[in-house]
């Protein structure tokens, strides 16, 4: 993401440059009228400043032509603005028949996303460049709003009904995803990113395989993609230094955190609950392939080594 100082957001969808076009026209209209009023006020204030307390300037009679002029010209300008913006709005509300449907669920305070063939991710949306996308969105609790400034689009996400948001990304890159409707304590933390990829890369990402990726790295990516870090380390047990350690369970017994235990905890999390935690974690059976579970385990193992050396220092 480009974080340098700028006056305009990035332009990364078919609508973005069109909305900017209208914005520039509005800037021109606003600058013209603001300058007109400012210059007249300053000019009159100097030109007609009070030189003599006893001056009684003659009244200037109301000029009907002038009144009509400054009623009708602004009216015509607003009608131009209306038709321009209405055309853009109708265009952005329309989603092409071949659009790729992606499901979005907003909840306090995360975005849960599912791709057409089942791939899930949290607080991130991967999409192929140039492909029309239509989001089908709903909320699990309060009103949220799905906002991608680089695309110039926003749509409230309501509980109890579905709303749609269509866009076509035009530029590869990572862009901000914000929740724009106040939704409670962590509203400003309900953010993520939209990753626009080349179609081939998107397909590879979708298949869950990136060629020649080391398993631990793939596991790290999955760990983020499935939102594991939303809980683990906070409401859930930390993964750092977990592998190979003895884990105390709720029923008083202990187990060693080996591959078998981690596999069971991912597919059947309720089977063994770590002492002091509540059974909140959903099962990932059917969502993760065995290969992906192995990658996750490889990632957890890698945490083990680096974390423990840090602790010794």
């Amino acid at each position, binding site marked *: 993401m480009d974080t340098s100082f700028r006056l305009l957001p990035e332009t990364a969808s078919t*609508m973005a440059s069109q909305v900017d076009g209208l914005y520039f026209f509005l800037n021109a*209209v606003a600058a013209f009228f603001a300058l007109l009023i400012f210059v007249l006020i300053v000019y009159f204030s100097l030109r007609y400043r009070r030189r003599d307390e006893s001056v009684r300037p003659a009244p200037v009679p109301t000029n009907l032509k*002038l009144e009509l002029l400054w009623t009708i010209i*602004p009216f015509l300008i*607003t009608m131009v603005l209306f038709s321009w913006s209405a055309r853009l709005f109708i265009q952005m509300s329309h989603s092409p028949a071949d659009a790729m449907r992606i499901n979005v669920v907003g909840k306090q305070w995360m975005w849960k996303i599912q791709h057409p063939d089942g791939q899930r991710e949290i607080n991130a949306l991967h999409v192929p460049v140039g492909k029309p996308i239509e989001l089908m969105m709903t909320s699990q609790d309060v009103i949220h709003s799905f906002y991608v400034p680089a695309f110039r689009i926003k*749509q409230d996400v*309501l509980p109890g009904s579905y*709303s749609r948001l269509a866009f076509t990304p035009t530029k590869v890159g990572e862009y901000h995803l914000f*929740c724009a409707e*106040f939704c409670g304590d962590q509203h400003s933390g309900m953010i993520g990113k939209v990753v626009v990829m080349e179609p081939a890369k998107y397909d590879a990402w979708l298949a869950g395989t990136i060629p020649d990726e080391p398993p631990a790295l793939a596991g790290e990516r999955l760990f983020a993609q499935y939102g594991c870090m939303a809980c683990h380390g906070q409401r859930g047990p930390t993964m750092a230094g977990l592998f190979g350690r003895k884990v105390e369970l709720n029923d008083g017994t202990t187990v060693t955190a080996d591959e078998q235990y981690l596999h069971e905890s991912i597919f059947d999390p309720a089977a063994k609950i770590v002492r002091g935690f509540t059974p909140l974690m959903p099962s990932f059976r059917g969502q993760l392939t065995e290969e992906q579970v192995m990658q996750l385990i490889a990632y957890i193992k890698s945490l083990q080594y680096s974390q423990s050396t840090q602790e010794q220092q």
Partner: protein
Amino acid sequence: MTTVPYSSSLGRETTYLNHSHKIRSWLLTLDHKRIAILYMISITFFFMIGGAAAVLMRLELMTPQGDLVKAETYNKLFTMHGVMMVFFFLIPSIPAVLGNFLIPLMVGAKDLAFPRLNLASWYLFMIGGLFALASLVAGGVDTGWTFYTPYSSTYSNSYVVLAVVGIFINGFSSILTGLNFIVTIHTMRAPGLTWFRLPLFCWSLYATSLIFILGTPVLAITLVLVGVERIFHIGVFDPSLGGDPILFQHLFWFYSHPAVYIMVLPSMGVVSEVITCFSRKRIFGYAFVAFSSVAIAVLGFLVWGHHLFVSGQSIYGGLIFSILSFMVAIPSGVKVFNWTATLYKGSIALQTPMLYCLGFIGLFTIGGLTGLYVASIAVDVHVTDTYFIIAHFHYIMVGGAVMAYMAGLHFWWPKMTGKMYSEWMGRFSALLIFVGFNLTFFPQFILGYLGMPRRYYAYAPEFQALNVLSSAGASVLGVGYLLPLLYLLWSLRWGKNAGPNPFRATGLEWKTSSPPPTENFEKTPIVNEEAYAYHRMEMTGDTVATH
């Protein structure tokens, strides 16, 4: 006491201020002028609470990460800022303070039509304010001043009901004040004061009162429904109880959009009085200015849906609200053009009230023009719920309404207190507020178009530079608001006597002494000319300023 503070060369000893000094004579007063002073003190208090919340918010926003306060605290701060400033400062500011004081004087009456009702309005206002304060003391409210459901009705763990009850009670204060003004303007005008001889301030407060009476009950009912859903779990707005969350937004904005005009119309009235006096000219296009007030009040009721462009209302609904929103820009534009034309060939004195007044026109123009951006539905989709909106409505409500309140306060202060403030301090603070305001809020237009959402206590690092600029401006603005508090209080003790008409203005309020006697006029004045007849005004005699 060795000196009698209110004695003047005119020899009038008894005024509404000094006829009795007992606390009881203030708290049980039926005099519209004393009630106006009670309101002035109360809203200044609420302004300072709202302002303190703003200071903490701007400090938090100096850095991208949340560090000064917790997220929960920040959410309570912006809620308290909005509730205090909108319901307990801006809405009552010009109507309840200046309107209360001036309407009877301007129409040549002894008091408002219903003096007891007027006092009851103030008590309702204070009770409402105490409930809102209680919600703050109890631990705060975190819903934002908009109370969007189902967050407010189901999910928020804060003191929503207390705040809602406060606003509900306060609403009755507005309704009764509006009723009082309408009846007074209809029935108590002095002989010869026809509708088209009324000062435009009365016209604009008449239009405002219509909105008070028509709009406030809708807000009151809506907030009751939020309370009912919250306490009894009766489904109105929460879909999990069978309600509709968008219904709340329609009902809320049906009042709260016209409420913007409650803040702006009285400001326009003040500006029409001040600009004519300091350019010694009749207002240009009196009838156009008067009827544009009414047009704004009427059209203002038909544009609430522009707050819902991305909420999920139908495309056609959105388009209709968009075109109506453009329409409401026209009468506002007509007013700005007419005020500017009033300056033409005038005799212009840039005294403190006039500086505030010209500041109003400048900032209101920017606020109005950026209204075109948000009426443009496709642009609004991008900028709604961002800092662009924050900047836009602060230009209207602070740059507009507060500047006009300051203009009015400085214009009528000599009338209300009989004292002159320091002219140089006045001009300096007007300049400081204008500069500080622009420095605070102009960067927020850019921030908004860049995509920074509102109500974020932590934000992306690339937004920091503009946020720091905004906070720096806010500190200048803060000093600008503190100065008048000091020099106006100073003037009460050490200010020069003002005399009945220090600015040599037309209007009946200037035809009585300063401060006026309790009964306003010794005998009922008779009006035989239009408003703002500056060209016929006598320029000699004892109406000339004493400074």
